[in-house]
């Protein structure tokens, strides 16, 4: 049976402000990062605000991604703020 959902992860301040670190969503209707982001933004004013921020970065399967990067069932998509390590 093929994987039919997408794993979503949030990190750092985004994780704290959204109140969640990971979840799974049905893959239906999601072709790229933009589709997923727009779907998540429907949830509330806060989600809409946090996930529209220019500073939020996205990774698909642990590789940096852009709005147009394809998202397939079984993929892992992560949203996070600019990095501040080292």
């Amino acid at each position: 049976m093929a994987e039919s959902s997408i794993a979503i992860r949030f990190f750092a301040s985004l994780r704290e402000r959204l109140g969640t670190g990971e979840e799974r969503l049905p893959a239906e209707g999601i072709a790229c990062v933009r589709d997923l982001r727009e779907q998540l933004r429907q949830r509330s004013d806060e989600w809409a605000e946090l996930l529209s921020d220019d500073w939020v970065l996205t990774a698909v399967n642990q590789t940096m991604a852009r709005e147009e990067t394809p998202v397939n069932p079984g993929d892992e998509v992560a949203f996070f703020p600019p990095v501040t390590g080292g």
Partner: protein
Amino acid sequence: MIRIQSEALATEPVLATLESDAPAVGAVCSFTGLARDLGDQSGVQSLFLEHYPGMTEAAIQAVVDEAAQRWNIHRTEVVHRVGEIQAGERIVFVGVSSRHRQDAFEACQFIMDYLKTRAPFWKKEITADGHGEWVEQKTSDREAAQRWSESDGL
């Protein structure tokens, strides 16, 4: 070798590894970053470092691979702490060995600059009263990394 760890960061064994290739290799440049007591807010007592297990290691490896394409380097060691870190403790160590001094220096600086902007780590500063504040990315770090893509066509 790339290591992400929550334990204290010991530099001696890593430096010993870098020097173990002598006498074939004669130049070792290293950088150690320590938790400072002041950042975006004063009174910082400790840091909390979050990362993205799997992606963080892969992102650092990509930076190391790029350095190895640009410079003649022999061995690279990167150790980065995560979790709670007290002021004064080591956060990150980057060391590079090379036959040539300039390659060791430039590759080490390049890896630190790119690690700061490309590797998924997020730093929270915690004050004595327990209040935590996520650190914002610095313009100076973005500029330091951009420098390397604007330079000569190496």
